[in-house]
């Protein structure tokens, strides 16, 4: 490798399209109430040229998102800390992390279901406002959400057709009778959505949606109830419902984790096909980093509410730099490794011969690097100061004080 492994902190801008030139100063973050100042990241965040940017123009961007939940009795939970990334049309960005790492909160912030404590979300360059019902409905028509559980996200007393015709009607006739403003001045006859929203009747739109998610023959499925469908078919209905609003951005929160392994692949292929045909900007939230490798352009690894590593999917999964990413990858079932590592106990041998894993009941560390209480490389600095993302290559960054050790080829090779 001739490239320097560690780039300068906060290397100069102009690396990629759509990257903001102004960074969120660290001092802005302290505006958040009752946030432990010591936990703020040290160092300027690096500007990463997203690996997903090559696919298409920037559709949605999160800049310096923070979310603090007040738990009562003076305790707060910082669910999301200084998260910035972009979603690009026709590209898949995967958000990977364990339960409680803040993945879903990020998606809810993007969907406008939660308001960020600080930071902002822009859609087509305009900051979103979640006040005002009309603007919000307009926003909702462009940003749609697919839920994890197809068993509870569909109403058991309504037919498939009912689930689909409501969003079709709701989003094709905005209040006041005005036609929806196309995003970024584009024609609303965007490629892939076969017609404009009002060019066909709502019923025809529903049929077209069912065909789009390959629930065919559509006439049979439109009258069915959720209990008559398999898990995979239900999730297809969820996709169709999200597409009914003709969104530009699709936020898929663990869309396949409730499904059988044999069906997951079909679902991911369908999503892949949809984002290409409809040039959707797709956020794919998962705890299965292996599927992110096959499906995503860029992978963001979250731990303890912050992005600890990001970069092109193949790079991150094959040469993980952050110790947490290394643990995630070592934890995935590995059929080629019959039995050995499980039977040797759940340990991940770190570069220094140290042992990570045995998560036990340890949550993210409140002070310093969130992974410091599980990390084999952690030292006093890690427990004191929270590292910001540092560039490894223009498209890759990781937040770790020991990247020189953790990201060395032997370290990732040993896993």
């Amino acid at each position: 490798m001739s490239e320097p492994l560690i780039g300068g902190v906060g290397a100069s801008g102009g690396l990629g399209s759509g990257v903001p030139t102004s960074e969120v100063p660290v001092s802005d973050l302290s505006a958040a109430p009752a946030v432990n100042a010591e936990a703020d990241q040290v160092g300027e965040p690096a500007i990463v040229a997203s690996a997903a940017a090559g696919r298409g123009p920037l559709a949605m961007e999160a800049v310096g998102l923070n979310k603090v939940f007040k738990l009562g009795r003076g305790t707060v939970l910082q669910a999301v800390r200084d998260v910035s990334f972009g979603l690009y049309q026709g590209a898949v960005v995967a958000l990977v992390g364990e339960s409680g790492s803040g993945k879903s909160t990020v998606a809810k912030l993007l969907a406008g279901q939660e308001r960020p404590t600080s930071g902002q979300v822009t859609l087509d360059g305009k900051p979103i406002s979640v006040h005002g019902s009309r603007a919000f409905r307009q926003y909702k028509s462009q940003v749609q959400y697919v839920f994890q559980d197809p068993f509870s996200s569909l109403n058991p007393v309504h037919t498939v057709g009912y689930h689909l015709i409501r969003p079709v009607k709701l989003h094709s006739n905005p209040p006041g009778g005005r036609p929806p403003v196309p995003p970024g001045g584009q024609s609303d006859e965007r490629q892939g959505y076969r017609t404009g929203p009002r060019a066909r009747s709502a019923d025809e739109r529903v049929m077209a949606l069912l065909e789009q998610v390959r629930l065919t023959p559509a006439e049979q499925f439109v009258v069915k109830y959720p209990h008559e469908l398999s898990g995979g078919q239900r999730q297809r209905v969820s996709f169709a419902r999200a597409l009914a609003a003709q969104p530009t951005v699709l936020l898929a929160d663990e869309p396949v984790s409730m499904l059988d392994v044999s069906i997951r692949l079909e679902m991911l292929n369908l999503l892949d096909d949809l984002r290409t045909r409809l040039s959707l900007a797709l956020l794919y939230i998962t705890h299965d980093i292996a599927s992110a490798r096959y499906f995503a352009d860029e992978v963001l690894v979250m731990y303890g509410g912050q992005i600890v590593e990001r970069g092109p999917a193949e790079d991150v999964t094959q040469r993980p730099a952050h110790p947490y990413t290394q643990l995630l990858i070592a934890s995935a079932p590995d059929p080629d490794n019959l039995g050995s590592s499980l039977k040797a106990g759940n340990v991940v041998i770190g570069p220094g011969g140290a042992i990570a894993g045995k998560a036990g009941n340890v949550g993210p560390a409140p002070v310093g690097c969130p992974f410091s209480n599980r990390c084999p490389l952690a030292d006093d600095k890690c427990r004191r100061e929270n590292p910001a993302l540092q560039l490894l290559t223009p498209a890759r960054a990781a937040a770790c004080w020991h990247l020189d050790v953790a990201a060395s080829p032997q370290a990732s090779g040993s896993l």
Partner: protein
Amino acid sequence: MAPILEISDLSVAYRSVGGDVHAVEHVSLTLNAGEVVGLCGESGSGKSTLAYGATRLLRPPALITSGSVRYRGRRITQGGDPADILAMSHRELAHMRWREVAIVFQSAMNALNPVLRVQDQILDAVTAHLKLPRDEAKEKAATLLDLVGIPRNRLRSYPHELSGGMRQRVMIAMALAADPEVVIMDEPTTALDVVVQRDILAQIVELKETLGFSILFITHDLSLLLELADRIAVMYAGRLLETGTASAIMREPAHPYTRGLLHSFPSLHGPRRELVGIPGSPPDLRDALPGCPFIPRCGYAIDACSAVDMSLAQVAGGAGTGDGEGTGGRERGARVGHLTACPIVTPQVSQEGVLS
């Protein structure tokens, strides 16, 4: 040595207005002492019904229509004849459950009672099956939590105060309360994320080694079983399609369905390989399914497939070349052959399916 649990020719049907649903059809499966057998199949393939049928946990409209289940636990048989679980009286069943065969149920979120403290739930199991005095039972509950690595002060927690992984560990601790010889685990890690899942699997393996029970591990995730199980049985539409050692299934999958499963999960290690998946969906189990139930989704199906009786036969390639290389699993598999129900598997076909 005779297997500790021997299911032979078990069939289970659910009676319904539209006709019987044949959830399990003539399945034979054995579990040897100290072994981990993985039972793998998609939802609705009958894997849970098989396990619950074999332990007499099913209620009408489920009906066991044929078969026998022989159990050879040390305490129950004392070296004598095996006990037939299907012929047991109610009292015998109550004695057998938990003491001999314990179950870790799917979805620990629902299996624990939300209004009882963890301690009370463990005590319930311990006092019902071990007849211990209260203070000894309390001590037992604490040691059980130690066993699965949960701090003792969690005894007084309610289930909602525990994380998903901890709840699952509590379930495992409860199953181990009466020192059973067979533990059936029904998708114990399905709702958990990978790091926690691995922690728990490693814990299960460790406990198995120290306490010496046998495991029947039910899951839809074949990739997990390849790593965990000694032997794997692949189930589809109520029938077993293939059984073999984990390495035989991994390296020389015989049945086209098994090959489809192996090609449908993304690999994290090694080069990217093409994912094919299995198009189509499983058949309706109400219909009579002559021959192989996989025919409509099978790319290799021939006319003979619709006439095959789904009994398992030795895989031609695996048995014939048992001494040669490429059958790495056979050294410990002398007593467990690689069996499949597929009539068309020839060495050539199975070579095609070998993963690169």
